[in-house]
């Protein structure tokens, strides 16, 4: 019962982009005996999944809500994980960065925060990332997903961006091991663009990317 109330209060604070209130709810729950593990697995993750579901059902969340939801969730998760009795298992690993020539960081940050709160390990390569670096890092770090964020249409479609990552995966026969997901403004404007750049999947916003990536990971684990 207490967890239901915590989820409701926490979700409301996240929806209102009220970070202080969200932390207040979590800290009160901890004071009442809720474990850090339950905060992550029974509050933060279900709340994030509720938001993903709401967005998929046409709830018109804006960028500020996406940003704050992901930041609050990842910050709460970081704080709670530090208090876990045993190290948590992550469900998969993602290498993320902006495409070659692209300096825009917001989308990548929202996705990263969302993924961390879903217990997915994130390796953030920053901005203006070359195809070689994406693929080499994914191999070195045993990541199953490469996530490429682009804010501009020419960086999304560039032969040095997703198309080059695809080419490298083909050359190195890694297409079964590593999947590519793309996102960012150009993909929202042209919903077929992910096919043009030969990605495996795309997401229309940073929060939904959490679900798309989680689903891809689960599919690869089958």
């Amino acid at each position, binding site marked *: 019962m207490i967890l239901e109330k915590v989820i409701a209060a926490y979700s409301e604070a996240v929806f209102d*982009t009220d*970070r202080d209130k969200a932390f207040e709810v979590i800290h009160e729950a901890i004071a009442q005996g809720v474990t850090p593990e339950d905060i992550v697995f029974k509050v933060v993750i279900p709340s994030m999944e509720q938001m993903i579901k709401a967005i998929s059902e046409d709830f*018109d969340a*804006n*960028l*500020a*809500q996406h*940003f*704050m939801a992901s*930041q609050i969730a990842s910050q709460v998760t970081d704080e709670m994980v530090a208090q876990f009795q045993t190290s948590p298992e992550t469900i998969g690993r993602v290498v993320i960065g902006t495409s070659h*020539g*692209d*300096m*825009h*960081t*917001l989308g*990548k*940050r929202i996705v990263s925060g969302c993924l961390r709160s879903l217990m997915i390990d994130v390796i953030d390569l920053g901005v*203006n990332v070359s195809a070689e670096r994406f693929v080499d890092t994914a191999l070195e770090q045993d990541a199953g997903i490469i996530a490429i964020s682009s804010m*501009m*249409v*020419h*960086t999304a*479609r*560039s032969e040095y961006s997703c198309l080059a990552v695809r080419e490298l995966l083909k050359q190195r026969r890694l297409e079964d091991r590593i999947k590519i997901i793309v996102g960012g*403004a*150009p993909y929202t*404007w*042209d919903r*077929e*663009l992910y096919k*043009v750049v030969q990605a495996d999947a795309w997401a229309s916003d940073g929060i939904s990317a959490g679900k798309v990536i989680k689903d891809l990971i689960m599919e690869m684990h089958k």
Partner: protein
Amino acid sequence: MITGMDRLVAAIKGEKADRIPVFCNLLDQGVKELGLASLHDYYQLGEYVAEGQLKMREKYGYDNVWSLFYVGKEAELLGCRKILFSPDGPPNVEHFVIQSYDDIHNLEIPDDIIHHPVFAEELKCLQILKREVGGRYPICGYVTASMALPALLMGMDKWFELLFMGPPDVRDELLAKCSLFCQRHIAALRELGVDVIVYANPFGSTDFVPLPYIIKTGMPWMKQDLSAGTQGIVYYCGGARFNQVIESVISQIGIETYYLSPLDDIATGKQIINGRGLTCGVINDIKLIDWSEEQIRQEVKRMLAAGMAGNKFLFGTILMPYKIPERNIRAMLDAVYEFGQF
């Protein structure tokens, strides 16, 4: 002969010229017209940009020219030392002026933009445009709103962090400086004869922030940015939607031209504006890369059917991607010239 300015003035007054005005925003494409090796070369000289603008307007027959080089120019005026050029798209800000809160305290806003060395080439470009087409074709300038400018100075995610989670005094100090820059930039462009100033503010869109936030927090900054008046100002949210915001902007700020998002419903936008200003229906120009000429023609026809009734309407694009084939630019314009006739 009817000019672009005649068409624009007629549209503002709700009168009919030969056809609706067409604002076709080709920037990077100028490099091809001049046969230069790279966009980096093209943007080094005001003469090049002016010539590119004049050649493209002449070649395609649309109604406006731009004094804008690329959006990052504003960051350069505020100290940005590195722009990342691309072979086939707009340059990006690579060096962010603000790396820490101390950089906000130290940020200096130039008193005199017109004579600032970084503005020298834009000044030349503007002078050429004014001389060649002034009074006949509207000269457009681009100014980033105070609430959006920090994204060019520190990156969007750091700006979101400061805006929503940072110390309010630091945030407000930055916004005050950005608003001052915005006001001075607008004043400079007006003094140099720019006719139309696109006031770019993604934070005025409900895709970015909730409506109550825009009304409570965004609106006061917009008022401050535009305290010298709204003559020639165009409300534009970087392609993001703002139909829900129009009523508040009209009643509180009085802007008279709205450059809708391609995702906004044109008829709804026009209904909200309700004759109190000019509505620009904007095509999804990313789709222009792959659409067939027939698809483009049908889309233009649909847009104009939604927007032309009752006049006070023009057709526009966002900043058109470099990869749009020339035949598709022509297909779009031919369709507007055909269906946009009165």
